[in-house]
């Protein structure tokens, strides 16, 4: 059955359904219980499941993320919520040195079936310590699976398989997606391997993920008016990247622009561009374009924040350039 819900509601509902399905699942993080979640995702869950399973934590990102790791090893299926990706840096030691490392370093003895949800991205004028997109930092780390649900459907459907994963999974939820309303089919099953073509086209591939998907789809509509058929590939999974899907779309259209809210230098866009060069160089009719964030801490005023981020007009311009127009 399909219904229209917000991204926020979809995330809340999928957590609730997971907790109903499995007693081992619990959620912890800053203000997830009494407050109802910074982005109101967990509203009502504490009342339904109690504060043992919807657990408010002190502002101790490292300790509660590490506690999630320990609880996962101890047989639970924790969901750790980190309020924003900038704060996740305080837990990066635990995520990299413990969660991502243990299975390999222990010769396969210790897996960490932990899900960490992190709000990411800019657009709410929260300035330079609450607005960054650091997905590529995590996508760099072997041992992690990194997801970027860009649709309401994925926001709901990616959590259940993430909780089944025997290894740590990071889910990035872009803050500008929480209020979006889209159709949701709760019976549909998501895979955690593949990218998805969100819009078919034959002239150019626009490759993106997360909060940039709506902007990229909008840009594709604008390009239609110019007679350009853009294919939009939503990466969905940032680690491991779906190389085959990237090469397939580029081999078809022979042109690509990567749209990525991360900073240009060392970005996921750079990684994808390199993979296209390695795997589809002879298919290309134009250099790969990139639309990324300006290389500055994200500023507070609306006009500067807008100018710093990938926007529809910049995506269109990059696509036009790749088309030689």
């Amino acid at each position, binding site marked *: 059955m399909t219904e229209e819900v917000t991204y926020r509601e979809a995330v809340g509902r999928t957590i609730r359904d997971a907790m109903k399905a499995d007693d081992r699942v619990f959620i912890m993080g800053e203000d997830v219980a009494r407050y109802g979640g910074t982005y109101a995702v967990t509203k009502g869950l504490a009342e339904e499941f109690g504060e*043992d399973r919807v657990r408010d934590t002190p502002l101790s990102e490292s*300790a509660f993320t*590490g506690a999630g790791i*320990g609880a996962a090893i101890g047989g639970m299926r924790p969901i750790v919520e980190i309020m924003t990706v900038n704060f996740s840096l305080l837990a990066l030691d635990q995520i990299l040195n413990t969660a*991502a490392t243990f299975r390999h370093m222990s*010769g396969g003895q*210790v897996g960490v079936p932990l899900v960490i949800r992190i709000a990411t991205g800019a657009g709410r004028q929260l300035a330079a310590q609450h607005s960054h997109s650091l997905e590529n930092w995590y996508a760099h780390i*072997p041992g992690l699976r990194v997801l970027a649900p860009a649709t309401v459907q994925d926001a709901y459907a990616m959590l259940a398989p993430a909780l089944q*994963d025997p290894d740590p999974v990071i889910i990035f939820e872009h803050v500008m997606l929480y209020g979006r309303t889209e159709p949701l089919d709760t019976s549909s099953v998501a895979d955690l391997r593949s990218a998805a073509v969100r819009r078919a086209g034959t002239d150019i591939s626009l490759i993106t993920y997360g909060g940039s998907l709506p902007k990229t789809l909008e840009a594709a509509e604008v390009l239609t008016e110019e007679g350009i058929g853009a294919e939009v590939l939503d990466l969905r999974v940032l680690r491991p990247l779906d190389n085959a899907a990237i090469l397939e779309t580029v081999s078809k259209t022979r042109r690509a622009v990567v749209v990525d809210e991360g900073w240009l230098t060392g970005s996921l866009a750079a990684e994808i561009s390199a993979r296209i060069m390695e795997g589809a160089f002879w298919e290309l009719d134009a250099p790969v374009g990139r639309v990324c964030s300006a290389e500055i801490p994200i500023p507070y005023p609306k006009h500067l924040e807008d100018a710093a981020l990938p926007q529809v007009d910049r995506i269109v311009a990059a696509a036009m350039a790749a088309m030689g127009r």
Partner: protein
Amino acid sequence: MNKYAPGDVRPHLTRDHCLHLMKQMTRIRRFEEKCAELYTQEKIRGFLHLYIGEEAVATGVTEALGPEDAVVATYREHGHALVRGVPADRIMAEMFGRIDGVCRGRGGSMHLFDVGRRFYGGNAIVGGGLPLAVGLALADKMQGRDRVTVCFFGEGAVAEGEFHESLNLAALWKLPVLFVCENNGYAMGTALDRSESETDIHAKAASYRLPAEVVDGMNVVEVEAAARRATGAIRAAEGPYFLECRTYRFRAHSMFDPQLYRSKDEVAAWEKKGPVVRFRDWMVAAGMAHEADLARIEEEVAAEVTAAVAFAEASEWESVNTMLEEVGALG
């Protein structure tokens, strides 16, 4: 490994038990002396952190644990693994980097794991094991299991934020964690009073409202008694407990350490009150052990160490072809 009934919180100093403690400390001492020798022969590489001088802490604390309890240790953890029951040959093979090591040789000296014995590292980020221990205890509490998680760390970890965050969380949530601070006086080469404004570590711990004691970490009986008291309180669902065990590292921090930060006299003075020599002398004086008992222990331990080295020598290297195995999210 624990021949006491659960809830038995006092050590019983029978002759057998004393000989057992002596043997456990001797196993650590002789195993590590061999490791140092093998390091100079380049059989063991990388960092090698010896526990020599601190044997009473791991030995005494481990006596208070049952097989269901968990241990989280640091990069100076050979002794903890040995007394926990991880086979010496598998530990030695790990230190050689061989496939029959506990971790297929991938972890080496600093990263011993043995899930079957609930031994969760071998954690080489100072302070990094504390949140992990809190989480293991959280899982036990949420699942209603009567288990204790012991977390060993050095006094250097006290300067890390994770120490404070973890003590707070464990006390706040009344989790069954036994925090054991192995205070050997030096964070690598930095003396405690050069890095901490408050050098009474148990006093810091007490500020998080958990029971905290200071223990003579050179006295295995005192450590065991404290650990039994602590685990007894934890099992009575009273929440976490903290032991500061004052001890001393006789050897260098690692094999690269020229020890410019302390005098030979200081080391010699501590060696005189070393945990092994002190316990041995007490046992003999108290008529608990005869020279023949001690000689037998030495013989048995020497055989164990020799066999461990032979096992490690005979073990293969992991194939480069399997190097990519056992890492999450491969596909």
